[in-house]
Structure formats: C-alpha cells, structure tokens
C-alpha cells in the first residue's frame, strides 16, 4: 500500500508539472490536513499554522517544474513544511504563542468549571494534562520537536525524517532520543492515569 500511495502521489505531482491543476487540488485535499496539523503542533497557533501551510503548498506548486519523484512525495512535502516551520521559529516570530496557549488553557478551564456535566473533573484533568503536553513539546528545541512530531503523528521512519530535516539517520535517532528523554522526564507522572 505504501508503494501504491508513493506512485499515486508522485504521479499526481508529475501531472501538476504538466499543468494539470486538478491533480494539484487532489494532492492538496489529501495532504493539507497532515501538513497543517504538523505546523500547528510545531507553532501551536492555528492561524499561523494555516498561513505557513499556504506557504508550503505555494512552494510545492512553484517547484512543480523541477519536481522529480526521487523521494516519497510526503517526505518531500514534509521537507518543505519543516523548512518553513524551522525558518519561522528561527526568525523568532512565535513569542506570543505561549501566551496564547496559557490563555487558551484558562479559557478551557473556565468553560469546564462553568459546565455542569458530570465529567467536569475528568475534563478539567484532561485540559490540564493537554496544556502540560503542549508546553513540554514547545520547550523542545525546534529540530527535536519536528523530529518527534513527524515520528509520532506522521508515522515517518528514521530515513524519511532524515530527508525531511536534511540530516543523517543517526542524527535523527539522536534527536528523537534526546526529545523523548525530555518528554519522559516531564510526562512520567502521567503513567497509569486515564
């Protein structure tokens, strides 16, 4: 199935190269979710994530003439997405994110407290845990964060992540190990809690 997907996406992209806009729309419909979700988890701001995703797909469209199916399409796509996200973070455009995160959490808690649903306590606990997870992810160095997000949510292998982050496979393993080490230390207390 992986091979079929590979061929299908690459084939669509080759058609985009020939000027077929409908193939581009198909690729977009299939991949915009994963790309936006990746960027959202990187940046933790939905509006910014969508703005960056526009940039990613614009770059995909602009690169159509030089596109060669040498790597899996999703790997190539996430290479662009990682590049855009890391540039955004490097340029220091995300200082307000933590603030908005705190605000979102407070609002979330406010809603939970006001709610009379029987599961209010569980939902509050869930909100608190989620805020903690987001904060811990945000504290990871950007490249570690990108590696973990692609590994965990995009289910990409070490080799794919290496291509996406333009580094060696052993560097990816090292990034993942350090990142999970931090996550384990910070989230260990969540063990056994539903």
């Amino acid at each position, binding site marked *: 199935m992986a091979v079929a997907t590979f061929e299908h996406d690459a084939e669509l992209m080759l058609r985009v190269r020939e000027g077929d806009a*409908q193939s*581009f729309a198909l690729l977009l419909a299939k991949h915009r979710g994963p790309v936006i979700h990746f960027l959202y988890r990187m940046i933790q701001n939905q509006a910014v994530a*969508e703005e960056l995703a526009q940039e990613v797909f614009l770059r995909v469209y602009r690169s159509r003439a030089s596109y060669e199916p040498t790597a899996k399409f999703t790997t190539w796509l996430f290479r662009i997405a990682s590049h855009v996200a890391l540039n955004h973070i490097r340029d220091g455009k995300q200082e307000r994110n933590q603030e908005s995160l705190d605000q979102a959490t407070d609002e979330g808690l406010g809603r939970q407290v006001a709610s009379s649903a029987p599961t209010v306590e569980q939902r509050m606990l869930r909100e608190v845990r989620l805020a903690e997870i987001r904060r811990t992810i945000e504290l990871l160095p950007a490249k570690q964060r990108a590696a973990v997000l692609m*590994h965990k949510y995009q289910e990409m292998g070490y080799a794919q992540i290496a291509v996406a982050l333009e580094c060696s496979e052993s560097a990816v*393993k090292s990034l*993942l190990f350090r990142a*999970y080490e931090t*996550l384990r230390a910070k*989230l260990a207390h969540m063990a056994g809690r539903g």
Partner: protein
Amino acid sequence: MKNTKDNACPMQKNEGELLLSYCAGSLAAERVAEVERHVGVCPECRSWVEGQQTVWQALEAWEVEPVSADFEAALFARIAREEKAAGWQRWREAWRRLLPGGLDWRVAAPAGAIALLLVVGLAVENPFRREQAEAMVKLEAREIEKAERALEDLEMLRQLEPLEEETRL
C-alpha cells in the same frame, strides 16, 4: 545478568532505536518477539519501554483543530495571482528582448496597448487557467461559493492590473 545484557540489550549495544521502533509499533514482526523476550528480563529496558509508552499515550491525547473552510480557496487565489504575475513577467521579458537598449515607456507607451492584447493570449496559455481553477474547486462542494468569490476577485484583478502595471513601469 551482565552477560545477558551484553548479548542482547539494545541499550548496551547502543541500539535504542530498536526499543523506540518497538514502542512506535514500527518494528519488523520478526524482531518484536526478540525485543519482548529481552524486555522481559532486563529491568532497564523494561523501564525505558514503560516510560516511552506513557509518553506515547500522553501524546495521543493531543487533538488538532479543524482546518478553516476557506483554506483552499485562499490558496487557489494566491496561486492564480502568482501565475498571472508570472505571465506578466514572461511577457515583459519577451518584450524587452524585442526592444534594443531596454525599455523607455514614455516612448513605448503605444506598444503597451498592443502588449495588453498579448497578455490575453498568454493567459490562455497559462497552465492555471480559469476553467481549471474552477474544476479544482468543484472537488469540495462546501467551498464552491468561497472559491467562486475568489475567482471573481481574480477576474477583477485581471481587469485592474494591466492599468496598475502600466502606471508602475
């Protein structure tokens, strides 16, 4: 105990990725049994795997927000605008090549009028022509309306931009 570890412990052998792949469920089936056998006897690896599973489950809880309904329409509009600008660029370059010594638009003003007619021709040749853009937006019925509005905006731009272009140059 030390011997057992030395022979098979992924941590001792600097092969922690085996445990990582095992926890991610991406380890080849034939190696799963081998890792499970080792984890059963090695407290260090068992503790690592348990910690990793906790992190893995915690991360599962992080859901994402829905994508804005006008994401596609906004992107198609940006692409169409860019394509149009590229069309202009191609046209300008072609025109520049025709005029020796560069462009003097005060002299070449009448040529601008002819050029406008050429642009129409280029737009037809443009790979991102209007009918294709329309075909694209049909894929997502709920976005048709927004996309059509974007296309109308484009149509408007198409009418306005030759004027802007001319005044700028």
